């Protein structure tokens, strides 16, 4: 199949979102690879997915001149950086951090208006994610607002 024949789809189409498995099954019957502006190329068959994952030289993550730790790396340099990441997300570290997350969630919810509809993502989730990340890394409150503005700009640019 040439690139011109790759099927276009919309992962955010309500029909897709209503039953994603059925949508993937339908796509897979039509083609091994589909394309959307939202997700780029989607590989639909298990065998092909494994090929892409395991052949890290052909399907390299290392596609930019900019240093990207560890996402933009392949083996063997990926391994020690990924090892560091993994040490910070152990069950023991998470268990110690859980009460902090609960407290952040509770305090944020206390600030929300009662008895009215709100956009959960805007009013809670984005601020929660930022506060949890700052608390996790021990970052000062003063960095929260600049980082919040940075996140919005970064999202708009990507």
């Amino acid at each position, binding site marked *: 199949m040439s690139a011109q024949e790759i099927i276009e789809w919309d992962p955010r189409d309500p029909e897709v979102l209503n039953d994603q498995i059925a949508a993937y099954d339908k796509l897979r019957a039509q083609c091994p690879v589909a394309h959307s502006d939202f997700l780029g190329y989607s590989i639909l068959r298990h065998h092909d997915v494994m090929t892409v994952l395991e052949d890290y030289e052909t399907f390299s993550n290392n596609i930019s001149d*900019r*240093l*990207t*730790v*560890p*996402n933009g790396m392949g083996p063997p340099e990926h391994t*020690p*950086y990924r090892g*560091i*990441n993994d*040490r*910070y997300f152990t069950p023991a570290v998470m268990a110690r951090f859980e009460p902090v997350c609960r407290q952040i969630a509770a305090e944020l919810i206390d600030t929300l208006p009662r008895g009215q509809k709100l956009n959960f993502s805007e009013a809670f989730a984005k601020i929660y994610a930022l506060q949890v990340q700052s608390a*996790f*890394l*021990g*970052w*000062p409150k003063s*960095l929260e607002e*600049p*980082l919040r503005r*940075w996140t919005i*700009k*970064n999202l708009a*640019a*990507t």
Partner: protein
Amino acid sequence: MQQIAIEFDGYIRQLLSDHRRAGDDAPKDLTTSLMNERVFNRIMTDEELVSLLRN
């Protein structure tokens, strides 16, 4: 995009530099801990730390 990346780098580099200047008085947080992590028998550069934290 480049400008936005530099802006984030600036915040984090400042933070790393504050931690480093504090030496033994630096807070015992995960940022300090990350700054002492070793790859290939050396500590990570600021560039590596900023990238890891961004991701």
